[in-house]
């Protein structure tokens, strides 16, 4: 097993800052933006995005957590994953919703998340922001609007994201080859 560092702390901060500039650039006048971090691992990245956006405006967008476990398409086909909590303390109806996840690979989780999101209302616009885009691993026609870093990976490889919030010393993103 080999580990290769893809992204680490100083560069990560620049990346997050750049993504936030793009998010602000694409704001729609008259429509409120909200952020939904995808459980379990997208929530840390979502919190970083919200904190960074706060630096640029007085009112940062509201932040929620969305868990799509019950919407997965592999239920009864593999061992079920434990559900995580969904906390959306605002209405998504007619808002610009930014779905935030750490790694985009097959796109199946994003598909499930969009289904889950529908149960809360009809957003005006849904956008996808990911830290790592594993291009060429897609199973579904899903494309991110904001990408931290695109990486070329084999399906046998894994991308591991370590956040200080999870107890790691520094933020690091690894590519793991079995």
């Amino acid at each position, binding site marked *: 097993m080999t580990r290769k560092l893809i992204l680490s702390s100083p560069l990560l901060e620049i990346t997050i800052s750049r993504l936030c500039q793009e998010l602000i650039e694409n704001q729609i006048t008259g429509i409120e933006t909200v952020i939904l971090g995808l459980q379990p691992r997208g929530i840390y990245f979502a919190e970083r995005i919200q904190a960074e956006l706060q630096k640029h405006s007085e009112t940062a967008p509201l932040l929620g957590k969305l*868990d799509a476990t019950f919407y997965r398409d592999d239920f009864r086909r593999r061992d*079920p994953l434990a559900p995580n909590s969904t906390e959306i303390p605002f209405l998504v109806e007619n808002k610009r919703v930014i779905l935030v996840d750490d790694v985009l690979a097959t796109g199946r989780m994003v598909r499930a998340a969009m289904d889950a999101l529908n149960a809360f209302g009809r957003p005006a616009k849904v956008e996808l922001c990911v830290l790592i885009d594993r291009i060429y691993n897609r199973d579904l026609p899903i494309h991110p609007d904001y990408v931290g870093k695109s990486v070329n990976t084999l399906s046998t490889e894994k991308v591991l994201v370590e956040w200080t919030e999870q107890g790691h010393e520094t933020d690091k993103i690894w590519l793991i080859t079995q």
Partner: protein
Amino acid sequence: MLKSPHLLGIKDLDAESIDLIIKTAKEFKEVLNRPIKKVPSLRDVTIANVFFENSTRTRLSFELAEKRLSADTINFSASGSSVKKGETLLDTVNNILAMKVDMIVMRHASPGAPHYLAKHIKANIINAGDGTHEHPTQALLDTYSLREKLGDLAGKKIAIIGDILHSRVALSNIYALKKQGAEVRLCGPSTLIPKHIQSLGVEVSHDVKSTLAWCDAANVLRIQLERQQIKYFPSLREYAQFFGITRQMLDELPKEIVLMHPGPINRGVELSSDAADSPHSIILDQVENGVAVRMAVLYLLAARG
């Protein structure tokens, strides 16, 4: 992941599985508070609700849980069926399964009926009450409701008051509470408390007032007249006098206790109306939580395939 493909009783469930069901139910309760209270998890699962005994709450609750999970459901009740023509239980269920049913939710008057089925058929079986034996989903929803109010149940004092002898809710609750480390005291007339029940590690009392003063929560059970072939007490009025709980008794207690009842209530017998409708009572929360808990059970069992 649950260890068994069936939920036959709490007796076979370990504390870890109870925790898993409760934790999953918490997420389903959140689903039930969404504008669209439905998830697609069980969309390729067909469930038969097979009720050989009357039920309102449990059947509605299971049916709603199944629909909220997007399962296809069929309902069967013994009255008006071929059971009346002498068909055996196994034949009836096998005929239902021949229509490609994946899970069976069954209530039956005979204790052990779901255990017997589990040995002979290939489908997930959920016991929705077997005679006076067990009613596992009721105990799980009671646990869920208690944990919402009291937190961790280890060391908490729970009283079960009323007709213990005929109650499957009592037995399942005793197993569930003991597995979570709670102290359990049973209270009722000596004729309605089974002999040797202390061997399950519970205390027995015949005094309602001191039991209420002792406990953190009281689960009051219905007097099951339909199961009583002989007289266990002189009259309902006398029972209400000695074992009925009133609002005044609750108000006189030094601390606030949680009052539960699995329903249906005989108002004026085991609970007076003002006690049942008092702020102590979480009877309707129990019903609400029942759907979430049953969703969790169905979801976790279906995952085992």
